[in-house]
């Protein structure tokens, strides 16, 4: 596509200025290819505008009337309605899970010793509330999380989730080695995101596709198996606000929840008493990540046509959540959204661009692009940031959003679900179904050369999660490979693909976990760099 193609396209809906029309006509007079394009686009418009009109179903008006009268919640598709697959999940018995969980997950292992052996048995107490409340929060844990994990084998995950819906029975497990330990939830869905605290004591995760249509967030105490509900949220859209961000000392987890009416706010989990509190109250705020160090300062961004990020302190007398981050900020950065600080605190990836709410949820509407900034003693050097996709033009060409994660080594990072609206460069770059694996030490950051090999993501209908190992050369890709079926005969399928990146022209090695009608992943890697 070129500039003249765009003029030709716009001419069909009379979206040209006089000067543009003059320019287009002058070009058409001497260019046969563009005359062909005009003819093809015109034919196409006639075809689409002439598509057959299908009468509205006769029962539509009564259905709407009934819906209004009954106050039926709109937006719930057939497969989530009562009697759908989730009614089946609800029939799963509630077993005494925690003891088994603790014994199986935390059994000492010569290779993986991130987790402590159990010290107590306790019943799992998930919250059933829409938004976490004090009453829904379990009592404080009886044992402190482990503070000094042992190293794990290079590139090896500490474990992964496994979910299965088969012939009416739903199970969610955490798998480590050959041991699969069930996790009991009030309703089941597909695990889609997970983050282990740096000290290995807590595992935060998100479940999608549950009967309410909302994503459910939980945190698991890895010492005693207690489960705390972090709340529920509309699923992240365009991957914005999906971070589960642990502070470097594992004292806090920051995350974002979006209510049914699309109001987003930052929330905070405090490990010391397993409590949950709403951090912001503006309805347009997303938690970013923590600055390194013990000060517990967090980036929170407010989405707007021109977004702004605020550095806020979450402890201290001056802090009284929930608050408007603009009034609580110790630093304000207009034009910056979602800073994601590397574990070592030396770099941050963030977004610039104009935002809008095209799907009822915030995303970038113009110029959306991730950038990499250095962090110095003076803070994040946003002014001298580099574009992460160094070869892309920006401007009208933009990302709606993308998922980004840092590797524990603070050099590697991955980008996926890259929703690029511009001209693909060469062989479909960027592509939302591929994974880009960059390194800060590579001056070009991400180009098409940083695309993971084709077999790594082949057959994937979507990339669910990417987790990076501490050695900077291994990745755990969770890729959806098939949808599920109506009636609960079987659930959606996802494979966990453990990738060992090949050097030079060597192909990547791919180990696949969980083929068939199971959901395997996400993988969980220790969230610390190798010693």
């Amino acid at each position, binding site marked *: 596509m070129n500039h003249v193609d*765009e003029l030709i396209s716009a001419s069909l809906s009379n979206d040209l200025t006089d000067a543009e029309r003059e320019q287009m006509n002058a070009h058409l007079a001497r260019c046969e290819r563009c005359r062909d394009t005009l003819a093809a686009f015109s034919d196409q418009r006639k075809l689409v505008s002439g598509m057959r009109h299908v009468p509205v179903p006769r029962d539509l008006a009564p259905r709407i009337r009934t819906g209004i009268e009954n106050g039926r919640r709109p937006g719930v598709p057939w497969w989530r309605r009562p009697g759908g697959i989730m009614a089946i999940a609800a029939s799963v018995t509630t077993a005494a899970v925690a003891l088994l969980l603790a014994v199986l997950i935390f059994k000492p292992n010569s290779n993986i010793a991130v987790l402590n052996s159990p010290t107590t048995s306790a019943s799992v107490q998930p919250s059933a509330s829409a938004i976490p409340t004090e009453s829904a929060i379990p009592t404080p844990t009886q044992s402190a999380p482990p503070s000094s994990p042992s190293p794990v084998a290079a590139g090896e995950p500490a474990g992964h989730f496994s979910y299965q819906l088969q012939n009416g029975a739903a199970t969610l497990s955490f798998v480590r080695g050959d041991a699969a330990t069930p996790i009991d939830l009030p309703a089941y869905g597909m695990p889609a995101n997970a983050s282990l605290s740096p000290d290995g004591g807590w595992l935060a995760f998100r479940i999608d596709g549950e009967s309410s249509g909302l994503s459910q967030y939980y945190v698991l105490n890895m010492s005693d198996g207690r489960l705390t509900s972090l709340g529920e949220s509309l699923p992240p859209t365009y991957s914005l606000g999906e971070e589960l961000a642990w502070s470097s000392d594992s004292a806090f987890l920051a995350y974002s929840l979006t209510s049914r009416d699309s109001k987003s706010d930052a929330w905070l989990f405090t490990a010391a008493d397993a409590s949950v509190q709403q951090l912001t109250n503006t309805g347009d705020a997303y938690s970013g990540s923590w600055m390194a160090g013990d000060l517990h300062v967090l980036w929170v961004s407010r989405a707007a046509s021109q977004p702004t990020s605020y550095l806020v302190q979450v402890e201290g007398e001056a802090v009284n959540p929930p608050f408007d981050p603009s009034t609580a900020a110790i630093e304000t950065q207009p034009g910056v959204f979602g800073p994601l600080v590397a574990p070592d605190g030396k770099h941050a990836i963030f977004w610039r661009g104009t935002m809008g709410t095209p799907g009822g949820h915030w995303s970038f509407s113009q110029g959306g692009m991730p950038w990499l900034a250095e962090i110095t003693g003076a803070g994040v050097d946003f002014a001298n940031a580099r574009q992460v996709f160094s070869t892309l033009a920006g401007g009208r060409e933009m990302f709606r959003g993308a998922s980004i994660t840092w590797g524990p080594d603070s050099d590697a990072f991955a980008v996926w679900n890259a929703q690029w609206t511009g001209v693909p460069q060469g062989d479909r770059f960027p592509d939302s179904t591929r994974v880009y694996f960059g390194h800060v030490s590579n001056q070009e950051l991400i180009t098409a050369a940083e695309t993971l090999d084709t077999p790594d993501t082949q057959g994937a209908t979507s990339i669910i999660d990417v987790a990076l190992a501490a050695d900077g050369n291994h990745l755990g890709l969770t890729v959806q490979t098939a949808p599920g079926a109506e009636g609960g005969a079987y659930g*959606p399928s996802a494979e966990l693909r453990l990738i060992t990146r090949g050097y030079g022209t060597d192909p990547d090695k791919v180990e696949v976990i969980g083929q068939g009608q199971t959901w395997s992943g996400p993988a969980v890697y220790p969230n610390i760099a190798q010693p």
Partner: protein
Amino acid sequence: MEDEVLSMAFQGRSTVDASPMSVPRTAEPSREAGFDRLFEEFSAPIYNYVLRMVADRDRAADITQDTFIKAYRKLDSLTDPASAKSWLYRIATNTAIDEMRRRKWVVRMDDDREPHAERPDGRPGAEAQVMATQVDERLQRALLRLNPDRRQCLLLSDLEDMSAQQIGDVMGLSYGAVRTLLCRARGDMRRHLATEGLTR
């Protein structure tokens, strides 16, 4: 026509004796009259637009139903009659996108059928109708190969005859971004139509 109808709707004046909707009679009459007008004016275009987005009549009906229920609940937020069309299409688009996003988890058993395929009419003399149906199905297949953003943009332009500015209002994009997106959509569609043998 559209502005006139909607203007009356928001003033609560009714020009139709028997509303096809007959929404709850306990509610405020002017509000109901306004909603009835919206439904009467837009239910068919919205249904057809959504149908072309998802290529499934049942899903299109569900999404249209949810669109109008949401619209009813949000009616108070619509203060400018002139923006009613963009407002309603935005709700429909968002509802369809949400449904498509959720639906990626599960697919119905009968989804392997052709997209909203019609059974050929077996009556004598129906050849022209069969031909038209076949073209329609090939067009729909080409549309389905577009990514959702591009499909939506193309449909709003070519099916709904919206300007770049109106499409921007619906999709939350700038005027320039819509022009770029639309051009990409047309380029993709040109290739897909060629695959279906529908272009010169």
